[in-house]
């Protein structure tokens, strides 16, 4: 009996040990250097306490990056789920099972594309002179449309690419989830003359609450890692209009200054903020 209980620990310990080393060592090191004044060009550094953290709050780019990151998170997660649910329901209601499978296959293509490739393709598509996406506007009005150079539209345009990749993929998941639901509640609702939207709003979606929340969490985490998409499409510009926290931390650490301690303090704050936010949301949901 004793042997049976210790077996999971025997198998788990090495894997957990490796994971702990891989995750905890860099985290601890990042926390340590965030209290220093190290720069790439000067390997020696000294402890400066919370100076980096205090400086962050008077840094307009950091404050701007918090706003951009929160907007990015809200827009991409919200729009992805809306598109996924809307499209999933539309496919379930209006398309034959055979055609659904074909469309599902097509909807998977964007997410299979490497993020950087997708970013390049769309960057060219949005080019004001040669872009296919901006061509209709230019043809109708005679004026070029420069969405990525306009501070008012740049973030939304990049978000569109993110939603294109993930919204279609999640639509397939929602469709497959709807197909697994038992038909009886739907039939009962129809007998009671419920409208289609009422069936989905009050029966289907509440039944799918748990998987939809899981999808929302997956997308929230994924949206935090949108660095590659933004880096390729706008590099944080125009100005700092699309500069997210990870983008700014990378700029400070490696592109502009080489201030790795300052960049680490941003990374540590991000880690603390996301841990608290996710724990809070998870508890609320449960």
């Amino acid at each position: 009996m004793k042997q049976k209980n210790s077996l999971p620990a025997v198998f788990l310990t090495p894997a957990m040990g490796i994971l702990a080393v891989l995750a905890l060592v860099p985290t601890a090191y990042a926390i340590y250097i965030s209290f220093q004044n190290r720069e790439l060009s000067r390997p020696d550094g000294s402890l400066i306490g919370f100076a980096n953290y205090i400086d962050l709050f008077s840094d307009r780019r950091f404050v701007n990056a918090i706003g951009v990151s929160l907007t990015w998170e809200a827009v991409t997660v919200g729009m992805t789920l809306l598109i996924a649910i809307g499209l999933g329901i539309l496919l379930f209601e209006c398309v034959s099972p055979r055609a659904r499978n074909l469309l599902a296959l097509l909807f998977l293509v964007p997410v299979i594309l490497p993020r950087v490739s997708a970013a390049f393709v769309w960057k060219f598509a949005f080019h004001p002179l040669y872009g296919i996406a901006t061509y209709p506007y230019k043809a109708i009005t005679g004026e070029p449309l420069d969405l990525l150079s306009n501070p008012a539209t740049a973030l939304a345009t990049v978000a569109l690419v993110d939603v294109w990749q993930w919204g279609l993929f999640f639509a397939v998941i929602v469709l497959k989830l709807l197909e697994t639901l038992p038909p009886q509640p739907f039939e009962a609702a129809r007998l009671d003359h419920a409208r289609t939207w009422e069936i989905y709003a009050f029966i289907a979606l509440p039944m799918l609450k748990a998987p939809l929340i899981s999808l929302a969490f997956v997308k929230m985490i994924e949206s935090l890692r949108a660095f590659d998409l933004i880096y390729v499409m706008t590099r944080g510009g125009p100005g700092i209009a699309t500069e997210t926290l990870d983008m700014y931390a990378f700029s400070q650490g490696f592109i502009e200054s080489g201030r790795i301690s300052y960049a680490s303090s941003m990374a540590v704050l991000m880690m603390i903020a996301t841990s608290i936010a996710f724990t809070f949301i998870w508890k609320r949901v449960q």
Partner: protein
Amino acid sequence: MTKAKTLVSSIAFACLFSTGLTTLAVAAECSGTIKVLAQPRDGLTLLEDYKSEFETLSGGASFEIDYLNENDRRAKTKADASTIGKYNVYYIDEANVALFASAGWVAPLMDYYPADYDYADFDPGRQKVATYDGKVWFAPITGGGDLMVYRKDLLEAAGIAPPKTLDEYVAAVKKLNQPDQGIYGTALRGQRGSGANVWRWMPFFKGFGGNWFDGKTPVFDGEQAVKATETYLELFKYSAPGSQTGGWDEAVGAFTSGQVAMLIESTPLVGMAIDPKSSKVAGKVGYLPPPAPLTGGGYGHGLAIGAKANRDEASRACAGLFIAWATSKENEARRLEANQFSELNRTSIMTSPKFAELYGPDLGQALADTGKVTAVNFWQSPQWPDLGDRWGIILEELITGTRSDIKEGLDELDGFAKDLVARSQ
């Protein structure tokens, strides 16, 4: 006449290759693979066809080049050189040579550069930007200054003579701007970065008499910078769409695709604009030095010896040999033969009969004339990328309209510069 020219250039080539064979005789003993981190250049790609030649020359060593675009290359070289030092040879440029040299990330080139390869033959402007603190740090792979490149057909149709002064240039740009016909007056760089929008802005700043620092005190926050920025923003009203957040690629692409009347850009543009393979406007292009009082932006990119990956003298000598071979007269002659105008750096090649045969006497004259107004426009300091990139962001904000007060932007940069100097001490 053509036959005579061909004969002269054949003799010149024979001379160059015989020099190459002489240098083969001084073969070193190297082994393994020399790892190079670079940005894409036709000249480097061409080198890969001659790997076996380097193997023979070095006594058995090979080389492997990893390519990243300019901004990524800058970030990656900085990260690699300051941490693990995986690369034996780094591609560095005028903007970060001071940083790499002062941080000890690269070794002084001339200590390991074989004398036979004649470093003094490189264009003097490029030698100047490869030098920091009295030492040479890289061998040029590309470089030059600025040229005003224009569409002869459009200027003639509008009855405009090629501008010689900035006022004439601004007036011409305004007159030539015809968006309804798909022609824009100019193309500038709006993308943030010390090597992007700031690079194109600096000739205005220096041309109006601006200076970055007086000793350790920032002095750029004055009327020259304001006037330079106002002029730059004025010209942006006539700049091709996409250039507001675009860099070299967008500006050059707009010109070579026939949508821009005139622009001031780095000299390699000419090679692309007159080549029918890469330009729709080949045969319609004229070039002159930048209009007065603009200075040309002197620049140079090249190969440097990584200090960490080459811990001992022998490996540094091998890296030095690779750099010398890669930038040698023989390899430049091959680049000339392959019509890679932007990859030419040696005086002997640029004054050769073959060069004149390929590009005509006008270009040689324009390059010589622009050399007279070419200057080092940036602040030669390890902190330059940091300061330049910060101004690049503010300038991009001004260009795209998220900020409108030029003086306020310069004041912000002034505060940043003071912090930067204080931090470096």
